């Protein structure tokens, strides 16, 4: 029996010795190295009889990565499972892919045998890739941090602007009210009265701009809720045109309003349910743009067309929109060739139409003519 066991053991050792990878056999209870094959002996020397974690890894306690428990049944017998994993050995600074399995050794002990294949070259490439991946992840995190800082800074700027707009309204109220006090209570010379009147007008314009910018902010941030009120679009268009025709921009140009392409009959109305705080500035922006684009001596026509599904406002001028900005005409900050142009007028008109469920279209297909059409769907208002 003894000789049979020794023969079996010798046979196993011979098999393991001819395999060109490192193989070691460990007692699963005592961690004693029962056998080390020829390949491993070259680097480890005569290691048999030593403790595996001390000899192989220079540890004083069993390794954290030890897989012996995975290879045994609860009774401590081989469970037939094979553990395969990559492992870095600090001792020789080499990577190995290790395959481990428990088995009965001829002397009756339960052992695990481990076959270690050196994969250091392969790992070298994989590790450089993993390091590059980590570097990318770190840069992404830094970028995300910078983006957040930028967003926070923009939020802060908007907050400050909002406060400034709000705070400006109080002194502006005085600027609007005081000219009236001067005009009504003091006998001002005509020239002075005219100047005071201009001051009042300027203050009103400033208040309009502040209100518009607050509305624009709310439209952009999606915090605007449309509260439609009945209004007369034709009256709004006529009042806007009358006011603008006295502006310097309109000098040398004709501004003509019409109803469905015909002169406006006395007492005509175009009832619509909308927000005049949005629609008034929208009309003004579109018409001012048309006047500014129109050549000296040109005609700007404003035609209101109440139709069954929607009311259309068609503004035509004799100018041409530069080809390079046509596709982006209603985007924020898009402007070209206008002194003092901010690129916000057409954009805010677009937002105002959108807030009414409508749209704005540009037709620049005919040379020497530009047509802007605002389509405002009926929201429940009356007819023409």
């Amino acid at each position: 029996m003894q000789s049979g066991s020794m023969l079996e053991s010798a046979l196993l050792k011979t098999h393991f010795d001819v395999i060109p990878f490192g193989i070691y056999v460990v007692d699963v209870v005592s961690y004693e190295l029962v056998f080390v094959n020829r390949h491993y002996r070259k680097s480890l020397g005569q290691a048999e009889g030593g403790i595996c974690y001390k000899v192989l890894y220079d540890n004083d306690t069993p390794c954290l990565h030890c897989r012996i428990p995975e290879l045994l049944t609860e009774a401590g017998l081989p469970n037939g499972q094979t553990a395969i994993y990559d492992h870095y050995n600090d001792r020789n600074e080499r990577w190995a892919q290790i395959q481990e399995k428990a088995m009965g050794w001829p002397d009756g002990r339960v052992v695990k045998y481990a076959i270690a294949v050196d994969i250091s070259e392969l790992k070298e490439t994989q590790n450089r890739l993993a390091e590059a991946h980590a570097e990318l992840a770190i840069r992404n995190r830094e970028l995300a941090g910078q983006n957040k800082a930028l967003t926070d800074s923009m939020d802060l700027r908007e907050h400050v602007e909002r406060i400034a707009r709000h705070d400006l309204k109080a002194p502006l109220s005085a600027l609007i009210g005081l000219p009236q006090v001067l005009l009504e209570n003091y006998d001002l010379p005509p020239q002075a009265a005219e100047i005071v009147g201009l001051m009042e007008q300027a203050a009103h314009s400033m208040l309009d701009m502040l209100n518009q910018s607050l509305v624009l902010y709310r439209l952009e941030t999606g915090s605007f809720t449309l509260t439609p009120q009945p209004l007369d679009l034709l009256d709004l268009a006529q009042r806007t045109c009358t006011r603008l025709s006295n502006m310097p921009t309109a000098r040398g140009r004709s501004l003509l309003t019409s109803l469905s392409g015909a002169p406006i009959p006395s007492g005509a109305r175009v009832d619509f349910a909308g927000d005049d705080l949005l629609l008034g500035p929208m009309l003004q922006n579109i018409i001012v743009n048309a006047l500014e684009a129109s050549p000296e001596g040109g005609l700007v026509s404003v035609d209101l067309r109440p139709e069954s599904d929607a009311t259309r406002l068609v503004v035509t001028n004799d100018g041409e929109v530069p080809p390079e900005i046509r596709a982006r005409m209603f985007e924020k900050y898009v402007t070209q060739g206008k002194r003092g142009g901010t690129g916000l007028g057409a954009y805010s008109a677009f937002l105002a139409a959108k807030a009414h469920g409508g749209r704005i279209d540009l037709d620049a297909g005919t040379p020497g003519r530009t047509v802007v059409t605002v389509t405002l769907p009926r929201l429940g208002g009356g007819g023409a």
Partner: protein
Amino acid sequence: MKSLRILVVDDSGLTVKKMTKLLTDIGHEVVGVATTGQQAVDIFASLAPDLTTMDITMPDLNGIEATRRILADHPQACIIMVTSHGQEQMVMDAIEAGAKGYILKPVKQEKLAETLETVAAKYL
């Protein structure tokens, strides 16, 4: 670059020795050694190192959790992982925990020097 005061965290005595030699050779000072994650958390405040090299697999508290805990108390702490784990999830977990660099073993002197220089330039 200026000499950094470094804490080395690794449960392998061999790695600690090698890291100490590598760091010293490139002009830095190893001011402390921890062999477990918990030990690193415990001694970090008193050492106040400029930079920490952190292994991942360690007894009692792994390097990712130790990094998280150190950064919770010391948000400016500069920690780079020096590990044998290159799996994507492990890398992402370490970066998410706040690691500023990631080096895989075996550590090459040039790679270590380059990483320290980059991290120092950005964060120190």
